Structures are given as structure tokens and as C-alpha cells.
């Protein structure tokens, strides 16, 4: 294989280096700008109590549940899209991408149209029969976050499924594994990197969700005021707290994503 760093560098065209550096700079400069504004000495105090800590706790819990829903619903959907040929498949795939291209606030309006207690398609029924009101509730936050995160997971998993050589599963069949066993022991394990990536992206999207959440689940301190909402409001009244909160969320996100990559991206030569 390659004999050293110098050789690999020489093979990469200059415009690729330039483009990559610009991209990195583009992303990192605002990050550095944010870090500069954080008042490091007071950071723990700003985040440890009051609305900020409630917002953080709410965000972490709802985003995890939302990601789980995205996984449970998204995996079968991705399977169908990847493995089963049916008429209208590309139409269905385009529809699944819809929450991605909808402006989040519009997504929130759409959710109201479906699950709103007053005017929603089934919202009134949910309330009358089950006493369940999604709007203004943490469950509504989970629904809003899952709605925007689902397409990301479906996309990653469908792509992963398509890239699996079907002969692995056939090989497992000739070794005596039935369909269900093959799914859990072979397919899922081959799918693991794409699955992890899909979960990571979906979770990050759920965590940062603002427009759909505030429109559908409202903005109630302690109940539906997630971190992005809290940061937005804090920016006017207490910018220091807003920066601190933003940083803490960012740090948690980075820590989790780095940890995930380490265990699953393998050590290829």
C-alpha cells in the first residue's frame, strides 16, 4: 500500500486541498466566534440551575426518545424502500424526504394539522378517546423532533442496505441460518456502520430542532422549552447564559458523536 505521507499528498490535486481547507474554515470560524463569547468562569453556574438546566434536560431526554422512534419506524421503511420493488417506490421515497425540505415551522403547522387538539385530523379524536394532548406536552416535542429526524435515518439506512452484498446473506443461508436469524445476526451487523451514522445524524437533528417544536409543542418552560428555544429567548435577556447553554449542548453533542465513531468505524489499514 502507500509508503508514506508524502506520496499520498502528492497525489491529491491542489484544488481539493484548497476546497477542503475553505470548507473547514467556513465551519470552524463561527465555532471559534462562539467559544470566544462564552464566559468560562461562570459557565457552570449559568447552566446548572433554573430554566437553562431544565431546557438541557428536556432536550436530552426528548431527542433520545425521538431518535428511538425514528429508528423503530425508519428501519422497516428503509428496508422496504431498499429491498422491495413496487410501483410508486420513488414517489414514496420523495415523500419520506419531505420533512427535510419543509421549513421547520411549516412542519410544525403540518403537525398541528394532523395532531392539533382543536383542528387536527386525529388530534381531537386522540383527546376525546385517550385524553391525549400532544400539543404543549413533552410527547409533542418528541413527535416534532422525530418527524424531522426520521428522513435522515431512512436515508442513511436505505443507502447502507443497498450497499450490502446480498451474497453475505446467501452465504449465511447456506450455513443454516433462517431469515429471522439472518436479519439479526448478519444483516444488522453488516448494516451497523450505516445504522450508527443514521442514528447519529437523526439525533443531532432532533436535538437542534426549533421551528417545528415551537409551533407544534409550544414554548412552556420545563415542559416543552427545549434548549434551542431557551437559547433564543435567553439571547435577549441574558446573552451570557445563552452562549453558555449553547456551548454545553455543543460539547455534549460532540462528545457523543466522537465516542460513537470510535467504536464503530473500525480500524482499517
Amino acid at each position: 500500500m502507500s509508503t508514506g505521507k508524502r506520496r499520498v499528498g502528492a497525489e491529491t490535486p491542489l484544488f481539493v486541498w484548497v476546497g477542503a481547507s475553505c470548507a473547514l474554515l467556513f465551519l470552524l470560524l463561527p465555532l471559534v466566534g462562539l467559544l470566544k463569547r462564552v464566559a468560562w468562569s461562570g459557565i457552570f453556574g449559568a447552566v446548572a440551575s433554573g430554566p437553562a438546566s431544565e431546557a438541557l434536560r428536556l432536550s436530552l431526554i426528548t431527542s433520545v426518545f425521538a431518535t428511538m422512534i425514528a429508528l423503530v419506524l425508519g428501519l422497516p421503511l428503509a428496508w422496504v424502500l431498499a429491498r422491495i420493488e413496487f410501483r410508486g417506490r420513488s414517489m414514496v421515497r420523495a415523500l419520506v424526504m419531505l420533512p427535510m425540505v419543509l421549513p421547520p415551522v411549516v412542519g410544525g403547522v403540518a403537525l398541528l394539522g394532523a395532531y392539533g387538539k382543536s383542528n387536527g385530523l386525529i388530534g381531537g379524536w386522540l383527546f376525546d378517546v385517550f385524553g391525549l394532548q400532544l400539543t404543549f406536552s413533552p410527547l409533542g416535542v418528541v413527535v416534532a423532533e422525530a418527524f424531522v429526524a426520521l428522513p435522515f435515518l431512512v436515508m442513511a439506512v436505505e443507502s447502507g442496505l443497498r450497499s450490502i452484498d446480498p451474497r453475505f446473506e446467501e452465504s449465511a443461508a447456506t450455513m443454516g441460518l433462517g431469515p429471522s436469524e439472518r436479519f439479526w445476526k448478519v444483516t444488522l451487523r453488516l448494516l451497523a456502520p450505516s445504522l450508527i451514522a443514521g442514528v447519529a445524524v437523526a439525533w443531532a437533528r432532533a436535538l437542534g430542532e426549533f421551528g417545528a417544536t415551537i409551533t407544534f409543542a409550544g414554548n412552556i418552560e420545563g415542559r416543552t422549552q427545549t434548549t434551542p428555544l431557551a437559547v433564543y429567548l435567553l439571547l435577549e435577556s441574558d446573552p451570557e447564559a445563552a452562549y453558555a447553554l449553547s456551548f454545553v449542548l455543543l460539547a455534549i453533542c460532540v462528545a457523543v458523536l466522537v465516542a460513537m465513531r470510535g467504536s464503530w468505524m473500525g480500524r482499517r489499514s
Partner: protein
Amino acid sequence: MCSRARGHAWKLDGEALMSVMLKGSVRQGRLILDIDVAVGDEIVAISGVNGIGKTTFLRVLAGLLPLDTGTLQVNGNVLDDVNNQIFVPAHLRNVGMVFQDNVLLPFLSALDNVAYPLMASGIGRQEAQQLAIDAMGQHGIGHLAQMKPTQLSGGQQQRVALVRALINKPQLVLLDEPLSALDVDARREVRSWLRDQLKSLPGTKFVVTHDLVDIAELCDREIAFMQPQLQLLGNETQTTIVR
């Protein structure tokens, strides 16, 4: 050395005694395969140009591809019968198969790959691993046990795949170019090991190969795939083997 079979032996022996009887057709994309074959407990070479359907034939035998018409019987068991809507899927046929490119499971070590068929048939993990390591040791690849397939060379992967295919004493062995990744010396060595292994197994063993030496050394019979139909050749070995 191969024994010489002449003519259409299967007619002489009578249907009931044949281990594998396949008469039917299958369509795979633009390929239509019309097969009429009956063989006994033999090592059968399958030859023919690329793309003619040799791998498709193996897949039908393995249960990965159902027939469109016809029937398949192995050792008296009907595995595929289109008219009566019988189809036994691959995981329920006792098959040992080596695919082209080996297809070892990349997330398992070589040892776990070899042990897999044993565990799938109900043997406990410890015991399966012990049997696997013994088998690998016998074949001289015991030292590869803990390595992942991506860390093995093509030839090493192929040997592991062979051990894995045979470990469960399958009633039907299907090898798709099993020696293709080996160099000449390794090939000779593995070929003679393979011959001993295959001969000790009951049941039919199909080997897809382009190598004339494989055909001569390994097999009892050769089936040549030709367009438009499959033909059964007697094995008059006229080729000269260079050592």
C-alpha cells in the same frame, strides 16, 4: 486420479439410486438454463465459458434460486417441485457452499466464520469453536484463527471458506472456483487436501472450475455447460498435466 466414466451412466444405474436429480429450467435475467442432470455420490466438475450459468446452477442446488419449472431431488428428498409448489429454502438444506470471492462474514474472525455452521445447527459455542480450530489446524491454517477476513490474503480466505463449507459434513457440496485465488504450489497442496476431504464425504460434490488440472485430479465426472443446452461428457482425460 479420476476414474473414467463412459456414456450416460445415470441411465444405467436407474433413477432411484441417484443422489442428485435435477430436471427443470430457471430464468435469471436474460439467462435461461435448461437442465437435465442426474449424478450419484461423485465429485462432479462443472465447466463452461463465463456467464453461461454455472453459478446459477449452483444457486438452484443451494436453494438460493427457485426453479421456474421442474423438480430437484437430493438423496431422495424433494427440495424443489414447481408443480406441487414445494420449495425448501437454503437454510434448511444441508449444503456446504463456497462462493466466488469466498464471502466470509467480515465482522467475525476466521475461527468464528468456520464455527458458524456448527453453531447454526445447534452445537454450543465452545464446542463449535473447538471443532473449528481442530479442522483449521488439520488444514494448516490454525494460525489464522483470530484474524479478520480483511486481514487475510485471497488465498487464505479461500482456505478458510473451504474448511467452513465442509465442517458440517454437508450432504451436498457446492464449490464455485474454490482454488482460483491460490498460486500454483498452494493450489497443488490444497487440491490434494480437498480431494481427500471430498472423497470422505457421502453425497454429491459439485465443483465449478476452469482449471483442467482440477478437473482431471479432482473429479469423477465432468458436466460441460454449453449453449444452448447442458451436455454430459464422459471423462476421457486426454490432457497432459505439467507438474
